[in-house]
């Protein structure tokens, strides 16, 4: 059996108005970050259902990060405040179940913060890589 080099897989949910634009800006400025980071565009960070996060882990993601507008700057005024509560509760629960807390993260990245986006992704990818493969929330049957 061929042994594949471990490369972390990171799913990044980015809100359309701030963080997705921040990611675009990182691109415009050619600020690189690992290709392991794959972005999914959502209208607002509050669109991210815990189900999506668990599904990603279940399917073998090694880290999940949610990016939204800074609190107070939400395009929809209050969406990211709900995100903040939901994810605080969810991440605390994952930690309670013994899933490494470093695998989940919420970051506020504005449309002007291309550099922050790249730096965040570099740092997060490095952290997740150091943890190794996600085994604790993996559903073998879901993986193809």
């Amino acid at each position: 059996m061929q042994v594949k080099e471990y490369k972390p897989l990171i799913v990044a949910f980015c809100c359309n108005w701030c963080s997705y634009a921040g990611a675009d800006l990182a691109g415009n400025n050619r600020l690189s970050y690992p290709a392991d980071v794959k972005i999914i565009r959502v209208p607002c960070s509050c669109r991210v259902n815990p189900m999506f996060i668990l599904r990603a882990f279940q399917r073998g993601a090694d880290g999940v990060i949610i990016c939204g507008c800074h609190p107070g700057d939400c395009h929809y005024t209050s969406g990211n405040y709900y995100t903040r509560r939901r994810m605080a509760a969810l991440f605390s629960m994952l930690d309670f179940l013994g899933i490494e807390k470093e695998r989940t993260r919420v970051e506020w990245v504005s449309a002007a913060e291309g550099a922050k986006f790249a730096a965040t992704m570099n740092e997060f990818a490095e952290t997740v890589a150091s943890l190794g493969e996600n085994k604790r929330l993996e559903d073998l049957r879901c993986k193809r």
Partner: protein
Amino acid sequence: MQRVGVFVCWCGSNIAGTVDVAAVAEALKNEPGVVFSTDYQYMCSQAGQDIIKNAIAEHNLTGIVVCSCSPRMHEATFRKTAAAAGLNPYMVEIANIREQCSWVHKDMLTGTEKAIILGKAAVAKVNLNTPLTPGESPVTKRALVIGGGIAGIQTALDIADAGFPVDIVEKQPTIGGKMAQLDKTFPTLDCAACILTPKMVDVAQNEKIRIFSYSEVEEVGGFVGNFDVKIKKKARFVKEDICTGCGACVEKCPMKKNPNEFNLGMDNRPAIYIPFAQAVPKVATIDPNACNMLKNGKCGLCARICAAGAIDYTQKDEIIEEKYGAIVVATGFNPISMEKFDEFAYNQSKDVITSLEFERLTNAAGPSAGKLIRPSDGKHPHTIVFVQCVGSRCDACAEKGKEYCSKICCMYTAKHAMLTRDKYPDTEVYVFYIDVRTPGKNFDEFYRRAVEEFGVKYIKGMVGKVTPEGDKLKVQASDLLSNKQLHIDADLVVLAAAIEPDKSARPLATMLTASMDTNDFFTEAHPKLRPVESPTAGVFLSGACQGPKDIPETVSQAGAAASKVIGLLAKDKLTGNPCIASSNELMCNGCSSCERVCPYGAITYVDKEFRMPDRTTKIRRVASVNPAVCQGCGACTVACPSGAMDLKGFANSQIIAEVDAICK
């Protein structure tokens, strides 16, 4: 099954430099649903768009994926392309392989690998796309302005000027608001009445504007473009259309000893009254709590005296129902109550007054005909102490004051002090302050004139206690700059009371489903970019209901709100964003979770009858999303435990499909 076409863009060398575009097109050929896949130098060019259009026609494509630059760049372009070829524009998905791939990754292998995955995710999503059509709703071309102060007046005038009918609802018997009570205005010192009353007359004479004075909004239904509003017109016991405002009744009324609200209770008015000489509408109003005829059925003098026959003791509250396309909130502010500020002896001495009371005292139409006197004995005050920030910027006194800066007090206090010194050079005027805040055109110059030219004594420090003693007010204060305790024997103390939103604002916000902050100021849709719009579509904000403001700021915000209203009313139909939430009634529990997180009040509940499996019927409460109001944030979809609430264009199944494609 969809028939998906994939179009991979080179973007010259922008993408093709680090992504093997041909390999991407080839790899995506094998994805489910893909029947066509190609690459081209510039997909956004005319030639590139033609390739897409031709492929849609030739291969009967039902969905397309463009692997190109960010959707923020060209999603709209490719949607138009699809529409031109007869495909629903929402059957287009973009894989961002430029900003989020080729530009951030250095080597071809990595770039290509990631581009393929992003393409697969887009294909997985488009497979679940459904054609979406933006909803349309008609617009009632009439605006409602709630509040008839300077904010409401200006907004109404501007909207009417653009040719749209406007109704003003004012709870007082006259429009004019706080500005009508002011004497002079900073920093130009022109008289408030001189600049306000002509505007009030303009309102009265404008045939596009209707004034519902002595009226309140009772109920608001509907949504942007289509509000249904019930207005309660309180009985004033005078027929508005007949009364000429001659004032004969006011003169003859025997019940003369009622506190005059307009002069803040510093003098009296009769039971039948006109708030002030320039009131609009200039009609009398009977105070039912003071009128002997209404209370005891005895008197009837005004009815006998009225030549026009306008008095009607049997008048009842009337409910007016009207439709509006837009609603402007202009409910304004009030000074906070000084009842709890015992340290300033406001309750103990008549000679401790608020700044608004001071305005009335110095106003030529006020209780003292503009002569500055002590309310207690009518004597001329020689030493006057102004105290700033009474209840403003008050972290520790949340139960009686406000945390925020009331913004206008520094300037009006400078005005009061300056005018006092100007008119009565024999007076000594002290102003106690925490900071003097004078940002604004000609504001700091104004304040410095008060100090330098008029000799007003500004002292940094707060007044600790005011004690009435004999006919003096003993003022204890600290001077922070010289670090001394001061004792001043004052004749008059003027408190710059903090301002707060009008009490009617909170219930109104509930009716409008417009959000408020913890201080009951209305929240704007975006603090920087949409400052005069409420997050609730079709509801706009004008003046101090949104935050403390002076007159020039209020007027400019009023105009801005009006221009937003005009922009809305100018449309014949409102076209919505089709990527909005919708609830599957069969799964909805009616639990209200979604309603509670909706920032726009777009969700309501209806009782619906369902046929159950056992052939009985059951009535259940289910959520219903108003497509004209929903903005598509998706907060509700996560609050919904059953998954009944979903977001079109970003459905649960679509996002999970993307996750699955990425995590393969």
